[in-house]
């Protein structure tokens, strides 16, 4: 028997498939076609089958089914809880970029108005600087500085939301490395299902693409860490065992991501043993 979108054909006899476009698109999913013996569908056969009137009707009916199937599949792809987290964390990272750019620009602007102002030998954090600029300036400059402050406040709120959502969507990964960094890893991988299919070695250097390809192409040393460097365990580790911490942490993250994707709940036993192992390596007294 050969099954097509419009029906089943056996010994020249055709049984049209019933139901509306949605029912038909669901049916197509269940059809198993072997490409070795495949004979493509034929519109004249579909007409003979009573599934459509003519060539134009054939295409139109087929289109209806394909639209229904595609809309259903898109919906399914987006229904994963990680889809929104992905947009949230990417928005967050882009806000950081925008805030930094605007801050740099506003300081440049301020320096034109106050030729004696310089950032040399000052330890003023950027957000205090922006606040000062807003208070000490008038007109558009003050206005822009105020806008940066509002953006920063939004950014803080968003960061909290990302962290909270990450704890929910990827509890194990978040427990090991923090919600924000976990979400960034997921964003770089392209989604939780993509992250959980990655080998630990890939997770270790996620976000270090330039260094990785420089290493693959030339003889430069391989990157030790990418995004996971943002975690205190990696950047606080003594330089000589940083690579090792990154490697062990990535290994545990790979497992955590798989538990998150396939089970979706925190695994205390795994987390405890993973934390212990990472701590041990981090102290530099790994046997």
């Amino acid at each position: 028997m050969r099954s097509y979108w419009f029906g089943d054909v056996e010994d020249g006899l055709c049984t049209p498939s019933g139901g509306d476009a949605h029912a038909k698109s669901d049916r197509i999913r269940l059809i198993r076609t072997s490409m070795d013996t495949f004979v493509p569908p034929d519109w004249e056969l579909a007409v003979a089958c009573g599934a459509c009137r003519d060539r134009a009707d054939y295409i139109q009916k087929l289109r209806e089914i394909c639209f229904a199937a595609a809309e259903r599949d898109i919906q399914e792809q987006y229904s994963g809880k990680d889809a929104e987290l992905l947009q949230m964390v990417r928005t967050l990272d882009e806000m950081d970029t925008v805030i930094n750019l605007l801050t740099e620009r506003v300081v440049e602007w301020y320096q034109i108005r106050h030729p004696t102002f310089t950032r040399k030998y000052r330890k003023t954090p950027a957000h205090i600087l922006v606040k000062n600029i807003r208070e000490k300036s008038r007109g558009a400059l003050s206005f822009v500085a105020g806008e940066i402050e509002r953006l920063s406040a939004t950014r803080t709120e968003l960061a909290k939301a990302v962290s909270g959502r990450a704890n929910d969507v990827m509890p194990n990964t978040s427990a090991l490395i923090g919600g924000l960094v976990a979400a960034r890893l997921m964003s770089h991988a392209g989604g939780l299902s993509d992250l959980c299919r990655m080998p630990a070695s890939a997770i270790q250097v996620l976000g270090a693409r330039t260094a990785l390809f420089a290493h693959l192409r030339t003889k430069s040393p391989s990157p030790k860490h990418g995004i996971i460097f943002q975690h205190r365990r990696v950047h606080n580790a003594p330089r000589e065992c940083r690579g090792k911490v990154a490697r062990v942490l990535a290994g545990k993250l790979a497992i955590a991501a798989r538990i998150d994707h396939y089970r979706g709940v925190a695994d205390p036993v795994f987390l405890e043993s993973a934390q212990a192992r990472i701590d041990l390596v981090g102290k530099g007294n790994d046997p």
Partner: protein
Amino acid sequence: MIWIGDVLVSHGEGGVYSERMLGNARVWDPFRSKLAALYHEGTGVEITSDTRVLYLGAANGTTVSHVADYAEVVYAVEFAPRPMQDLLEVARRRKNIVPIMADATRPEQYAPLVETVDLLYQDVAQPDQAMIAIRNSAFLRPDGKMILMLKTRSVDVRKEPGVVFKETVEALVSAGFVVQESLWLLPYHQDHAAIVCTKPEV
């Protein structure tokens, strides 16, 4: 193919991606579309109002919309949900596009939907592009044409594009295809090659 002077155009409803118009003809920009680049740099395949096309890697439907202006019907296969949303919108306005959300590496997924076609066009960012083309040639009629847009960097970034190109052509030839034309799409697209071939008559 329709040319106005040395500008490639197609006739259809404009405004798909704010493309430039020449009167009521839509300018088909070789810098944006690899297929347009092929028509500029090489011969390509003539698409006419009775050509049935299977288009793998339809993406946002930019090139697809031009192909649909020429062809009888275009089966447009795309895998990722985000570009698929755009493709659906293009397909809603062009009644001869059949949008299919599926993975081109698994033709059995959409086999019940796709009839025999005259032209197989492939532009996918996958490692094994020759294999995808060969597997999908089940939809191609004997003596039908295939245009493979080879993204050499998707096959293997570490390999020389020239080597990838040669290997792909060899794989197609050993699968029985007769290569008609093969060229790099410079200056329009870096590290991209076009391979035009014919499926042998059985």
